[in-house]
């Protein structure tokens, strides 16, 4: 194991993250190479969203480190967006929020920016939806609009937390197409996914979490019945009497 190699985008070193004194991700070590397309899988409550929040910096590690390569811009689509759909905004206004890092608070949105927003809407299949109020969108259309915002953000590292929940098959196919396109452009993409068929079909790498890392490597070797069985056996509930974790050599979870 050689932490922080030159081509690592994210490096976890003995990372433990959680809430209060309870660990949700336990002693994770490994790295996500630049340009990787990684699926994070595992049962409910296994720490997938917590790990993503830690990578974005919204949640601080309890111990260990989560290091992101210098000069990496980051885009994040949370599982539960705090988007207020009753706000009187049009679809273009929502997508144009993605220009924030480029234009900031006061930078004027130029013709090229409006072009980028229009291109993004076309790429997600929402051509002609720009002037619609956001409260008129269906769930799938809203998810497409949020993907358009990710496109506009033009980030090196893209984190998606369960982007395919309650979305129909055609939309999933289109969104997978966008993710593969990002992968082709050399961006690093980390996606929390529940559908294991999708993982086997489209994601080269997978990380199976069950609070501690169960397996990490090529999807075909990670998503196996044996591994899934092991993952299901983990203890989801918090135990206030759980023994304190003593310092010990971290189980190496990386194959990447």
């Amino acid at each position, binding site marked *: 194991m050689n932490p922080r190699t030159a081509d690592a985008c994210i490096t976890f070193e003995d990372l433990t993250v959680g809430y209060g004194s309870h660990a949700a991700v336990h002693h994770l070590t490994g790295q996500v190479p630049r340009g990787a397309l990684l699926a994070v899988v595992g049962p409910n409550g296994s720490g997938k969203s917590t790990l993503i929040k830690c990578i974005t910096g919204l949640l601080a590690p309890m111990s260990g480190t989560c290091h992101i390569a210098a000069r990496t811009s980051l885009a994040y689509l949370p599982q539960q967006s705090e988007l207020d759909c009753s706000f*009187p905004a049009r679809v273009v206004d929502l997508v144009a929020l993605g220009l*924030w890092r480029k234009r900031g608070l006061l930078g004027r949105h130029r013709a090229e920016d409006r072009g980028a927003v229009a291109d993004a809407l076309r790429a997600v299949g929402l051509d002609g939806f720009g002037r619609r*109020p956001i409260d008129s969108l269906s769930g799938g259309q809203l998810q497409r609009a949020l993907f358009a915002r990710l496109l506009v953000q033009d980030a090196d590292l893209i984190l998606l937390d369960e982007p395919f929940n309650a979305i129909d098959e055609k939309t999933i196919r289109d969104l997978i197409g966008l993710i593969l396109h990002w992968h082709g452009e050399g961006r690093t993409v980390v996606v929390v996914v529940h559908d294991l068929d999708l993982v086997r079909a489209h994601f080269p790498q997978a990380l199976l979490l069950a609070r501690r890392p169960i397996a990490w490597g090529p999807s075909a070797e990670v998503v196996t019945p044996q591994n899934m069985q092991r993952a299901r056996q983990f203890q989801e509930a918090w135990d206030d009497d759980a023994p304190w974790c003593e310092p010990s050599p971290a189980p190496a979870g990386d194959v990447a």
Partner: protein
Amino acid sequence: MVDWVVAPFLEFAFMQRALAGALLLSLSACPVGVFLMLRRMSLTGDAMSHAILPGAAAGFLLYGLEIVPMTIGGLIAGAIVALGAGAVARLTVQREDASMAAFYLVSLAIGVVMVSLRGSSVDLMHVLFGTVLALNDDALWLIGLVAAVTLATTVLLWRALVGECLDPLFLRSVSGLGGVVHFVFLGLVVLNLVAGFQALGTLLSVGLMILPGAAARFWVNDAVAMCVASVGIGIVSSLGGLLLSYHASLPSGPAIILSAGVVYLVSLLAGPRGVLRPALPRRHHRTA
């Protein structure tokens, strides 16, 4: 008719001053009220109007009915309550509605006790209900200054204000402005309430902030248009209220708020997004 509308303002300087004050206040407070409504904080505006009372009362007790000390006192009291309630909401499990209620109730009680320590109930009425017909130069300058600061801040922070309302988690993930913009906005609320209480009193200055914005929601579905519409409604209400007060000998502050209430009611019934429109039978619909 023209005489009925124009004559009072041509004839009396105090009416001109009252009109100038009310128009400036509409220009400033109404857009703030639109964002209060969009952030579901309309009642926070009401709570803040109570919260500034002890500060204004302290200024009143120490210096009498003087605009500058009462304003500074109101600003300090408002800032303490806004920052205190905001900090409790951000640092503990308690939501801002509960912490705000706790802070403003204590503040209001302190204010009433302070006013009752000295002076008659007439003084209390003055602080609570204001006198738009007795605006002096100091008060007009203050309202003008507040209007300028409010408009400039709103324009500069527009993108962050919209971002904080529309998708606060996203704003936090791309910028550190989320928390800042929240407190700057609460500051604008306090500033406008303080500017308004000389004219309309602490209880009614919130009315000119909230009612036009709430009414505008029934007409348009765009943040900029809503701000413009709310200012228009505020101006019409001010004008109507002052005329009502002049001709019917009603207290001017409540008359302005009542006019705004009438506009709200009409908007609620007749606006394109109001209650009557969906009830009307639609003869045509599009295929897609």
